[in-house]
């Protein structure tokens, strides 16, 4: 044994054993604490959903879906809101997906490594960190007043499209990057051009990732409230936008793009901010539907990712 008392404690078998068992207990304690904290977070998600469904349960009737907003809580419904949300999502998807996928293809397959490409990449990362309400201000100044779109479905759809563009780009880039280079080289070896390689080989293999990104983007857009409040969505609308289908040739009309609108999250916000408790049930019911849609979309995205990962074996 050593004469130095500090070293002696390290060498005394009893002290070492005690210290070790104490440290092992701490280890176990941490496992329990970590598991508990995680379970609490998951439980909160469950409580949130159950609470919404319970508070809103009396409103889940057919009328709730087919009635317009009303001053009387029990007669109020979400017809204008869900129609508005659906139409906005169509505009958002039609604008964000092609642009986002094309930008991702450019960055992954075409872009030379230079300062110009670096600027585009920095911009995409930065845009993902811009608060959503700032997109609302952009839309208010640019779409609503400069482009004179007014407080319309088109303006809202474009705003949300810009908002989810970084999500679509990042997801598509990841999907494209996971396609092995051997595939590209095989196609080039047979004399395919860059675009043929991209279109016929890279894109088909990336479909799963692109779909996942698109759904995650839309699930983000569907719940966004702040930017569409900023462009001035009305919360009390008792009419529907112009129907997209007409009885005469060409059977399709785009008049609805210019119509004023409301959307699910706006309607919910409006009901939450009313002091009358009867409207809180309406808010809960609208929230449950909104949350249900978000969770469903995320679930589908996870499922697609899982299925494609299983199907492709490089």
């Amino acid at each position, binding site marked *: 044994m050593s004469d130095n008392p500090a070293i002696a404690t390290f060498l005394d078998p009893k002290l070492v054993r005690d210290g070790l068992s104490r*440290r092992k207990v701490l*280890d176990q304690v*941490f*496992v329990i604490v*970590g*598991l508990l*904290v*995680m379970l609490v*977070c*998951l439980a*909160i*998600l469950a409580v*949130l959903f159950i*609470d919404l469904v319970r*508070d809103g349960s009396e409103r889940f009737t057919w009328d709730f879906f087919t009635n317009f907003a009303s001053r009387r809580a029990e007669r109020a419904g979400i017809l204008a809101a869900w129609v508005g949300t659906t139409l906005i999502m169509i505009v958002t998807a039609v604008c964000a997906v092609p*642009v*986002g996928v*094309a*930008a991702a293809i*450019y*960055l992954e397959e*075409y872009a030379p490594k230079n300062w110009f490409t670096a600027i*585009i990449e920095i911009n995409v*990362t*930065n*845009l993902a*960190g*811009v*608060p959503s*309400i*700032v*997109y*609302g*201000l*952009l839309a208010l*100044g*640019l779409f609503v007043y400069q482009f004179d779109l007014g407080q319309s479905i088109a303006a809202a759809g474009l705003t949300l499209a*810009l908002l989810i563009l*970084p999500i679509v*780009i990042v997801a598509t880039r990841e999907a494209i990057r996971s396609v092995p280079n051997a595939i590209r080289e095989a196609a080039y070896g047979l004399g395919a*051009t860059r*675009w043929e390689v991209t279109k016929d080989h890279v894109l088909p293999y990336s479909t799963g990732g692109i779909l996942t990104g698109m759904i995650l983007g839309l699930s*983000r857009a569907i*719940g*966004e*409230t*702040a930017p569409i*409040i*900023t462009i*001035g969505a009305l919360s009390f609308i008792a009419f529907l936008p112009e129907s997209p289908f007409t009885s005469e040739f060409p059977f399709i009309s785009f008049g609805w793009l210019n119509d004023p609108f409301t959307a699910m*999250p706006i309607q*919910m*916000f409006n009901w939450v*901010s009313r002091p009358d408790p009867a409207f*809180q049930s309406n808010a809960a019911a609208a*929230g449950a539907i*909104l*949350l249900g849609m*978000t*969770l469903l979309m995320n679930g589908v995205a996870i499922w697609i990712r899982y299925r494609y990962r299983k199907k492709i074996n490089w």
Partner: protein
Amino acid sequence: MRDRAVELLLLAAGLVAVFTTLAIVAILLIESSAFFEHVSIVEFLTGTMWTPLFADARYGILPLVAGTLTTTIVALLVAVPLGTLIAIYLSEFAPSRLRETVKPILELLGAVPTVVYGYFALTMVTPALQWLMPDLPGFNMLSAGLVIGLMIVPYVSSLSEDAMRAVPRYMREGSYAMGATRLQTALHVVVPGAFSGLAAAFILGISRAVGETMVVAIAAGMQPNFTFDPTQPAATITAYIVQVSLGDLPHGSVGYQSIFAAGLVLMIMTLVFNVIGFSLTRRFREAY
């Protein structure tokens, strides 16, 4: 020839991102400069009264900044400990099956629409807090901050976990060989090794909390109030923008321009945090 056309088309799509950034900066600057023709910058940055809707309109941004900082600090007090704890657990302790199951579910917490979180804060968290503190007003920053904190937990935990998993295996093995337990290894080797990554995760969490809108608009009240006391109702920068947008201020009025000036301040705040966060991430990437 056709290949060239396709490339240009794809490039144009890529440029949309650049134009969006430019447009955001341009719109904020143009409308704000119109605003600063009516209101002096000094008064804007140092005034403690924000009463744009009164007859005697005063534009001092400090109450809104105070509200934003207070809710952000409360949110961080929740998100940083919980997020780090979950990240340490998932990265160092959890079996991989559990990790792969829990991570997507945890990420759902971040996907819940913020207006739903607002409802949650107002109708569940505030009453629960009032039961503990009977004097708490119906609108307060505490409840909003707590819920925002919860909302950014998955964000912080996911980025922190990535940072910790990037710490090379041999560093852990060295620690185990010295007789350290998993907890000691996690706290004394992995966390310091991933420190800059963790800091980046916290800072990106901050910029999330600063820009959060609906929870504060619903649960914290919309009255500007120059205080750092979280039990008080107050407005944040974002809540003010929502409040003005709900009314109908005419296009071109000083009130209308004021939301762009507020937005500019918000943008600068988040930009500063993002830049710090990204530079930390980059430094941490070069570590190994």
